[in-house]
């Protein structure tokens, strides 16, 4: 097994698995105005269990960068209200989570919306705006 160099960086990077889910509060904000702060608040966030947060040295409310070869976003870290088994973090399905999804489909036309591998690291950068996600 190789050395995980990311752990020794100033803002260490850790690999994690992400899956997406639906949230009625975000859906409500989407119906109202998808360019609103409310929609951003419910979408630009990653949720994980306390143990994983401790493992990664992260705290509730931290801004974190999630990145992989398909994209890079900055979102807010939130703690899951449930007991989580660990090793898996959650994002509400949105343009933010879609920025990390592979274009590989095996020719079947269905991307892996719920099975994302990314790296997470602490950042001081601002939360990614929806305008930047559509290239404006």
């Amino acid at each position: 097994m190789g050395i995980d160099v990311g752990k020794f960086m100033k803002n260490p990077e850790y690999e994690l698995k992400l899956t997406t889910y639906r949230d009625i509060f975000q859906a409500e904000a989407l119906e109202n105005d998808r360019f609103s702060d409310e929609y951003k608040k419910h979408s630009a966030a990653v949720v994980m269990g306390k143990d994983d947060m401790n493992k990664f040295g992260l705290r509730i409310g931290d801004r974190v960068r999630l990145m992989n070869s398909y994209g890079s976003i900055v979102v807010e870290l939130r703690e899951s209200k449930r007991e989580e088994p660990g090793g898996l973090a959650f994002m509400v399905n949105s343009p933010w989570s879609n920025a990390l999804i592979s274009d590989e489909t095996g020719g079947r036309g269905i991307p892996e919306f719920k099975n994302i591998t990314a790296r997470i690291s602490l950042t001081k950068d601002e939360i990614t705006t929806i305008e930047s996600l559509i290239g404006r």
Partner: protein
Amino acid sequence: MVTCTGCALLCEDIEVVIENDRIKESRNACRRGAARLRGCKNRLAPSFNKMQTDIDTAIKKAAEILKNAKSPMLFGWSNSTCEAQVKGIQLAKKLNASIDDTSSFCQGLLIERVLKKKFRTCSLEDVRNMADVLVYWGSDAQDSQPRHLSRFSVFPRGESRQRGYEEDRLAIAIDVRESNTAKICKGHFYRIPLKGDREFILALMDALSGKVPKYDAKRILELAGIMKKAEFGVLFAGIGLTYSIKEDIDILVSLADMLPNFHVMPMVGHYNMRGFNEALFKETGFINRVKFEGKPVHDNKYAVVEVLKAKSIDALLITGSDPLSSLPRSVLPHLSSIPVICIDPCVTLTSKIAAVTIPAAASGLECGGSAVRMDGKVIEMSKVVENSYLTDAQILTRLMEGL
């Protein structure tokens, strides 16, 4: 009473208070439905090349784009009325275009099998009146179809289920995440690992055929026992399940075949996705991913994701969908190099990049029409508020005339 188009439950019991031709208040709707009934904050205006114009010019410019395109695609349709969907299919035929909808990367795999009668299925009224075992698999109805449990499945009293969830019904959740729906299924939540659905199905099939399952034997045997004894079971198949087994979707058909008292219902999000699938199926024998080349040709290469990746279309008309919100960013770059026509009541991410935008009436509010509920029941919607927006069906008719 008003019909809500917030999701594919198409709730018909909504009461509204109207003031100045807008819905001021609604009763009985869920949070999402209430927000949709209030209407979006930013209405779309007609535009061409990012400059505001009048509706006639916008439609004329859109018709020119479609006429000049060699391989156009018409996409969206899940938030359009049945009437608009039929017009869209006619337009695709006239243009020899490809046509696809959001089921292509959503529940299409399951809806196709329902329409081909590979699954036993039932109506939501059957669920309310008869269902005793309810399995939410990869589905968080509480957040996606928020009144599913209260109107049809867990909570209501039914003809054969007078004692409701306290004694007559059992709700089970199988999911990667302890969703809000799973919270309600207390004591019957089966957490599975990411992409673990196939293995879980195989273990359940082992248990149903009298073998000892390969993992979590005690709980899976218990679940198999409950499902076997069901008088009227329903498996609500969510998008989490569909995505997880998309390479081997027929394994769910095999499981359903082992459960003669069970019915399978795909949990559909958008209010009229099934309507489009049924309309295209009736016309071509396929539910999505069709190109008209004199005759309809179905191929995965006509899936919206694949055409964008392959850059194989030179114009895209979108109605009833916001692909910039719902598709992976990695497949979107081609959209910046082709003209996009966006028909929608509201400003969306897609309308921001569109060459032509055409505002439409919000269906079920500003225009009537019909839609197909997630279980296949046709629901009629009425016009509730007055304004001058064209319906999406009228816009498509005018586009056809403009060709």
